């Protein structure tokens, strides 16, 4: 079937359903522009997956170095998913305000883990 032709079902839809188009950042026109980006990001993520597997076969000297490299690649991938697929690159302020707290507490959690392992008091 030809995807470029409008399907019949769309014509039965009551017109004017999004009443606030001017204030909606995701109008149909904008979305069409983003599709290429979505596909490119998908391809990049798959490439990075292959890179992660490849890098794990290389010995970077210590196990810690291998973990650091793998986590770096994973963080870049996660950043792409969050920024593009989850639209965090252009989101409203309130979402960022929620996420600042999340970041703060997750960072604190891992810092506590580090402290427990490093054990600065009895060491």
């Amino acid at each position, binding site marked *: 079937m030809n995807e470029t032709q409008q399907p019949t079902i769309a014509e039965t839809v009551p017109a004017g359903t999004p009443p606030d188009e001017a204030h909606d950042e995701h109008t149909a026109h904008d979305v069409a522009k983003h599709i290429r980006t979505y596909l490119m990001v998908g391809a990049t993520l798959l490439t990075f997956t292959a890179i992660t597997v490849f890098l794990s076969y290389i010995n970077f000297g210590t196990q810690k170095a291998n973990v650091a490299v793998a986590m770096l690649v994973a963080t870049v991938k996660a950043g792409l998913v969050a920024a593009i697929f989850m639209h965090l690159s252009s989101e409203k302020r309130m979402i960022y305000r929620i996420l600042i707290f999340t970041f703060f507490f997750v960072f604190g*959690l891992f810092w506590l883990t580090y402290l427990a392992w490093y054990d600065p008091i009895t060491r």
Partner: protein
Amino acid sequence: MEIPYTVTARPDTGLWNAKVGIWLFLASEVMLFGGLFSAYVFLRLDADPGAWPHGLLNVPVGTMNTAILIASSVTVVMAWASLKMRRFRAYWWYMLVTILCGVIFLGVKLIYEWPQKFDHFGAFIKKDALEKYEQYLGNHHLAEKGLPPRTEISGHLHNTAALHDENVKEYEIALDPVNAEPTNPLMDRPHFLPLPHTDKIAKVEKEDVEYSSMFLPKHSAYFASYFTITGLHGAHVLGGVIVFTYLWLPVGTKLYKRNPEHLANRVEVAGLFWHFVDLVWIFVFPLFYLL
């Protein structure tokens, strides 16, 4: 039951309500997985040298599942974009592919990966008996290379009666490659076990065994964290598949006819959840399969 819903954004925040809702939920999800990941980090940093296992998971299968999950993230964002452009048929197909990706991911996990572990046996040898099993452990070879010693003999347990019967005094194990050829340099840091256990059989006396178990959560801190984190992640994949299926079924078509923007919002919210699940897997895959 009718759930009250407005498709338009609030004037003060510029956001529609469900979007704020899903982000608050995802923020709590970050803490849930964050707690488990920090537990993983703690257990791993605290493990004795050589005690954290390597190469127990199948890397090609894990890589394939990662690719499937990433592909489904692309298709779900395409499904949403199709709705925004009011192309319902395209939406329907993209959603179907997304659902199938989720089902395949779960199928691989539940039919292949997990049962294969349940069928695997490992016996940790007591310190003073390590020398007796040197031919399976290769610790002299490892010591020469400055690598941490091995204490476990693993493979397929032939006499499963040994698990319960006190009169059976030894385990008969068809060895994993790592114990069949312990001095092979390839086994110094094995990457994955695409090969099944070998034909070489070792007899391990029960009184030499410190602790033994099938590859279950109780086997080790590694498998405890592996099953907990991949299990919780799998439950999220299942949840996503159920929601997507609901939105894909005729209920979704009806909603689209009534108010397409309403369905687009629902797909966007479910999609945000799905991307988060994908994001978690991006960290799970290297941590458990590769490192």
